[in-house]
């Protein structure tokens, strides 16, 4: 019963996270392409909700790994833990940065390339995590 709870929580939380971060990244790209500020705002909201789901996805994934897989250490589990933690840290940093500095992604901002690089690096992590998750289905 507890196992099922962890599995379902992990699937729900990780689907939110895995879906919203790529959508936010595309919206951010559209902001630079079309110059419409609302795309950037929308990307920020996607990043917020994705970041909220990430610790839940990581925690339930760890609980599932400990209960269903007896915490066995294999390459897939090691990568899921490492990149999951990296995603949580980087996404939290991105959201906090954008919250404290609303103009961080502006076309004339000096830090926009660092912001963009962080967002796309996190996109890579979340896609890789989704790919690893697919191996369990």
């Amino acid at each position: 019963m507890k196992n099922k709870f962890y599995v379902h929580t992990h699937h729900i939380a990780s689907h939110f996270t895995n879906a919203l971060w790529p959508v936010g990244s595309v919206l951010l790209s559209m902001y630079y392409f079309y110059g419409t500020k609302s795309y950037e705002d929308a990307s920020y909201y996607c990043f917020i909700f994705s970041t909220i789901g990430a610790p839940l996805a990581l925690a339930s994934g760890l609980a599932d790994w400990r209960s269903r897989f007896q915490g066995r250490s294999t390459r897939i589990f090691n990568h899921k833990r490492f990149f999951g933690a990296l995603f949580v840290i980087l996404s939290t940093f991105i959201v906090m940065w954008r919250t404290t500095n609303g103009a961080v992604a502006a076309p004339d901002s000096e830090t926009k390339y660092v912001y963009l690089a962080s967002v796309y690096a996190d996109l890579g992590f979340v896609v890789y995590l989704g790919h690893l998750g697919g191996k369990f289905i």
Partner: protein
Amino acid sequence: MSGKERRELERKIEALVIAIPRETEANEYYLKLANEYEDPASKEMFTFLADQENRHRQSLEHILAGLEEQLAKLPK
């Protein structure tokens, strides 16, 4: 050579580690269905399937133990 052998063994172990809970879940699923059905034929079929999944799990656990033993013997 031992590096390649180690990686291959680890991949096999990983496949089994992922597969074993699936067998357990399938077993639980068939047992649940066996309990839900009243007619003897359905009950017998799902009990048989649950037993098959249980045997698969046991085989996988046996193979996994062997592979882990092989891995432990390899030089690090």
